[in-house]
């Protein structure tokens, strides 16, 4: 599905083959199991690493420790009932998860959210992207051993955004905000001003971060040339999101699908040329600047009006039989939901395409030949959330 609308600037090299660098040291190999309770595996992820000295010769990602049977539960609950469960997939970005699921079911049921609701969705989604990227950068630097400072700055900014979420949706992380055909509540009075304030303040933080760390020699030494993901491999492994764009592939579903009302905003898609950890870091920083531009115009243009499609029903919601795949550009990549309806109150089949999991598949290719310390930051630069990987 994704390859059909993938616009490549240059054709992929057909002769491309994954080259795995291995260290050929003559020493004993040491097998270390990093995780699931290792401090830097972002939750309960495990990497079985085979080390030659400190170099990784083999890496086996092991996951599933956080498996909660999300898809099967969704098939046994109502359509609405799995909305709060989607919050818990990628628990940093509950609002975009909501959106992706709502979008899918709206496709299935033929609902059209009103304009104001679409604006609210864009605003919340871009705020979600901001706070996700901020946290990711903080965690990445934490993995590099910066004793908490960038992370705390990131959390300081995230706090402001979470406050916005709380005053809108009532919860800071598990928002459960979107509904099929619109949004649950309208913006409270004063929310837009508060949001504009946060948006105006945000560049200050980005500049601060730039001064703090972007020019740091240690950061450059640690990240440049580390964990290179070649363009060909990224495309053939169907990696999406900032990881793909850092490898130089122009693929952003906001541009490709123009879902919601993204065609009304002018924003740019930053692309990296090297595909290393530094590029993945910088692409996210630049993406935040673009998100701010979208937010500015959305907060300016948001029209008054209803927030729910009048056709939408909350109780005894039974879409007609059929299937739908909805996808959005979440902060981590292409987040898709595939739902089949048999006309009953529960979906017949429910499937999530989690960007974290699919981006994780290239971990070994990126890590082999680097040291353990690099493996940790490469994992950090992919930006996984175990809730989404294991579902």
């Amino acid at each position, binding site marked *: 599905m994704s390859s059909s609308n993938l616009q490549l600037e240059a054709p992929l090299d057909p002769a491309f083959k994954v080259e795995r660098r291995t260290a050929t040291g003559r020493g004993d190999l040491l097998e270390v199991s990093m995780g699931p309770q290792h401090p830097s595996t972002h939750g309960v992820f495990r990497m079985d690493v085979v080390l030659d000295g400190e170099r990784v010769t083999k890496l086996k990602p092991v996951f599933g420790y956080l498996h909660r049977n999300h898809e099967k539960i969704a098939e046994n609950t109502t359509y609405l009932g799995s909305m709060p469960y989607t919050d818990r997939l990628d628990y940093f970005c509950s609002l975009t998860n909501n959106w992706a699921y709502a979008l899918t079911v709206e496709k299935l049921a033929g609902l059209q959210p009103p304009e104001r609701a679409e604006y609210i969705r864009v605003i919340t989604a871009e705020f979600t992207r901001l706070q996700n990227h901020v946290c990711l950068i903080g965690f990445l630097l934490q993995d590099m*051993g910066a*004793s908490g400072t960038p992370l705390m700055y990131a959390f300081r900014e995230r706090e402001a955004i979470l406050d916005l979420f709380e005053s809108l949706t009532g919860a800071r992380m598990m928002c459960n905000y979107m509904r099929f055909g619109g949004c649950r509540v309208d913006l409270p009075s004063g929310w837009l001003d508060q949001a504009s304030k946060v948006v105006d303040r945000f560049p200050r933080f980005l500049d601060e971060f730039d001064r703090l760390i972007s020019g740091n020699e240690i950061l450059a030494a640690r990240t440049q040339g580390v964990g290179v993901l070649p363009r060909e491999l990224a495309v053939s492994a169907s990696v999406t999101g900032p990881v793909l764009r850092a490898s130089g592939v122009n693929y952003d579903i906001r541009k490709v699908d123009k879902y919601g009302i993204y065609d009304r905003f002018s924003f740019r898609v930053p692309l990296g040329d090297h595909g290393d950890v530094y590029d993945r870091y910088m692409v996210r920083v630049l993406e935040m600047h673009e998100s701010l531009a979208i937010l500015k115009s959305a907060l300016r243009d948001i029209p008054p009006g209803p927030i729910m499609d009048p056709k939408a029903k909350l109780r005894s919601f039974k879409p007609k039989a059929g299937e739908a795949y909805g996808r959005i550009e979440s902060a981590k990549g292409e987040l898709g939901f595939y739902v089949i309806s048999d006309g009953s109150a529960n979906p017949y089949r429910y499937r999530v395409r989690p960007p974290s999991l699919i981006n994780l598949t290239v971990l070994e290719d990126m890590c082999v030949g680097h040291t353990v310390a690099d493996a940790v930051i490469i994992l950090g630069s992919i930006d996984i959330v175990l809730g989404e990987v294991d579902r």
Partner: protein
Amino acid sequence: MIEWADQIFVLLKREILLLVPVALQPLASILLSVGPIMGVFATLFAATTVLERKGLGRIQNRLGPNRVGPFGLLQPLADGIKAIIKEDVVPYRTDRVLHTLAPILIMVAALLAYSVLPLGRNMVALDLDAGVLFFFAAGATTELAIFMAGWSSRNKYALLGAMRAIAQMISYEIPLILSTVGVLMAAGTLSTTGIVEAQSGYSGLFPNWYVLTPWGFAGFFLFLIAATAEANRSPFDLPEGESELVAGYFTEYSGFKFAMFFFGEYLGLFAANALAITLFLGGWNAPLQILDWVPSYLWFFAKLLFLIGLSIWVRGTTPRLRADQLMNFAWKFMLPMSLVNILASGLWRFTGDGVLGWLVCGSLVAGSYYALGLNLAPKNAVTKRIYRFAT
């Protein structure tokens, strides 16, 4: 009066010794020297943990510990009690003797170093002719303790951490010792008190500290960097880099033994900083002649606190280096730089401290710093990257 305030502890010790029978006087003298040193530096350790946590907190826009006692000042007491009453978990397959011996040895080695540090005028426990050499000899023993800790734990992380720690300590010991050579040449003695006395007096407004010469300035920073690496402090905290090796060589320690490692590490840091003060910052000498009336030990501790603050500040800022970059830095930058610095200090002796000396030595040091920095550059310096944008 001034004299009396300065020498109060020396006089006190003499008075007490007179009360003791002659046969017991040597023993009493030892106790009177060792007891206060241990007491004072244990207190300083406690103070530093609070200072570090509060300082880091403020750097990270947090409040830091503030629950125990006024402003959280009694936090170390609570930490200490917790460490003592915690269960001492020793894994089944450890080498019990070495596992127990390692934290003791690390403390002993760290405390030994204090015997040659002049804490004030006439305040040195052991005025050795080869004091500086003794200091380094005592410091070298900690490597053995670290190895014992890492090896006896029978844990891969601990072993990797110990190997890293030892490799790092041996590598940085060389620039550490070489950076002091200039001072030893200028002072003409290895005795710590002799070095301090060589720096007493003032030329014009400025004190005769070695840090105020080009080679001394470079030597001071080389020494500080190497000492930071010796003490396993950020950005050289790889041996215990928690994002990679959990806790490094003391992964399998808990309770009081863990606290002893912690204590030993901080004692090592203080000792290294105290030696830096002795060698470069004029020891207990006042920075200005008119401030000479302040007791000498206060100056010493003021400088010590300043250096501790500096190391906390650096810790709050930098990410961690990678193991191979750490080694590169030691062998490709620190070592040649300290060798050049020895040359500069030799030249200084011939050119004198006039304009010529500043010109020759200054340009030598600065030029080699620049050149060596460039030498690290192809791999390590920030290469400015331009990012493309797709619209």
